């Protein structure tokens, strides 16, 4: 491999780690985050069922997106229910989890 490419890769990785550290230090508090991620409001029971279904069905394929507008939560579910063949019960639990 060309040394330039190795250097480029190392620089990319290093800057990313630095960025991650910076961002981790400035993570919003749960209260601040609640504006962007509706799931931050959930009650323990809702979180149990909803987060379990999320882990089992969504996280099997991809990382969870870091918050999205509540106005698209049902659209996200309808899109993913075709990909993941979600049952009606699971869709309802997930929707409650995302929009308690």
């Amino acid at each position, binding site marked *: *491999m*060309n040394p330039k*490419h190795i250097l*480029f*890769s190392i620089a*990319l*990785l290093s800057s*990313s*780690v630095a*960025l*991650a*550290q910076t*961002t*981790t230090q400035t*993570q919003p508090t749960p209260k601040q985050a609640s504006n962007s991620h509706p799931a931050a409001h959930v009650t323990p029971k809702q979180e149990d069922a909803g987060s*379990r279904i999320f*882990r*089992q069905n969504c996280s*099997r*394929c*991809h*990382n969870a*997106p*870091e918050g*999205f*507008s*509540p*106005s*698209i*939560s*049902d*659209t*996200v579910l*309808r*899109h993913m*229910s*075709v*990909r993941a*063949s*979600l*049952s*009606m*019960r*699971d869709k309802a639990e997930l*929707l409650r989890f995302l*929009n308690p």
Partner: protein
Amino acid sequence: MRRTVTVVAMPGLRLLFRFSPSGRSSATFVLTLILISLARSMAAQDTPLISGGIGFFTDTSAGQTSYLPIIEPLLAAPLGPRVLIESRAVLLESFDPNGGGMPGYNHSHFVGLTYLQGDVTLTSHITLVAGSYLIPFNTYNDRLSPIWIGNFQRGPLIANLGTESTGTGTGGMLSGSAVSRSKYSLSYNAYFSSLVNNSYFQARRSAGGRLSLFMPDHGLEVGFSYNRQLQGVKENFYGAYAWWGPANSGFQLRSEFASGRHAEGYWIETAYRTQAFGGFDSIVGRLEPVFRMQQTFRRDATASDGLPPVNTQIADFGLDYNLPHNTRILASYSREFASTGNFNIWQTGIVYRFLTPAWKGK
């Protein structure tokens, strides 16, 4: 004008790229805008969304480096309570070194729709998918091919088996959850694709299906796929897959096997994220070492399925980093072994995944 673009350097992406004349693409875009406009009367949680990934990849194979900036936008727009229109497109510019010992690079660009489908919820167990859809053979094509999902930049070698080389079918599909219990769930897909030769949605006549069993307590999913090509060389393809991901372990194992008349192969992939140093969102927890082993076996010299012409083995060693704000860095080293020659493949890339309402919701 019609052509199908195959990006040899990235087998996993070769399924996606079809070039459309810009005039027709504009017509499709306008149609899409109309559909969005029709959907504006939706309830607050039903706002159409725009998602997708923006990436920049490098690929150094046998000493030759290519660069690939790419955008994969995805649109999902509900039309009433039972219908969803969804589509994914790809826009890329590929910079490849001039061959034949010539210095410098040439470049080419591709724009095309990966799929455009309507999903109609008929009952709680049946969804009708109509249009151009991703063929659900095994798991890679319809679940892992988006650039913001795959752990490796390259798709597996067997991705072409059972997916009619284009990756898409044009016709209809029934899919859904047949049975769903707390201990297990059974889901299915059954489809028929007609022969389509237009610029947007090239597809072959074929039929097939997939059956999947998921046991959440064990984190285990297994499935079987079948595809029959109904034109040209009428060929059967069989596939099986197994995924295993124990709850809260950060470990994931995925594997697939596919077999056709002329060739067969498998891949097995593991990924791991540790929680031991402050959880998944710590600096160390965001690291994700990944490994994939894959082999293909050619039964005869009739290369009708997109697999390498000789038996091939590839070991992929990757280190991904899951940055905050939906950004991933992918880096990998692969060694390919074949009777035609062994060589190294170095790949790096960064992908940002976006997800936003099409407009400000209520």
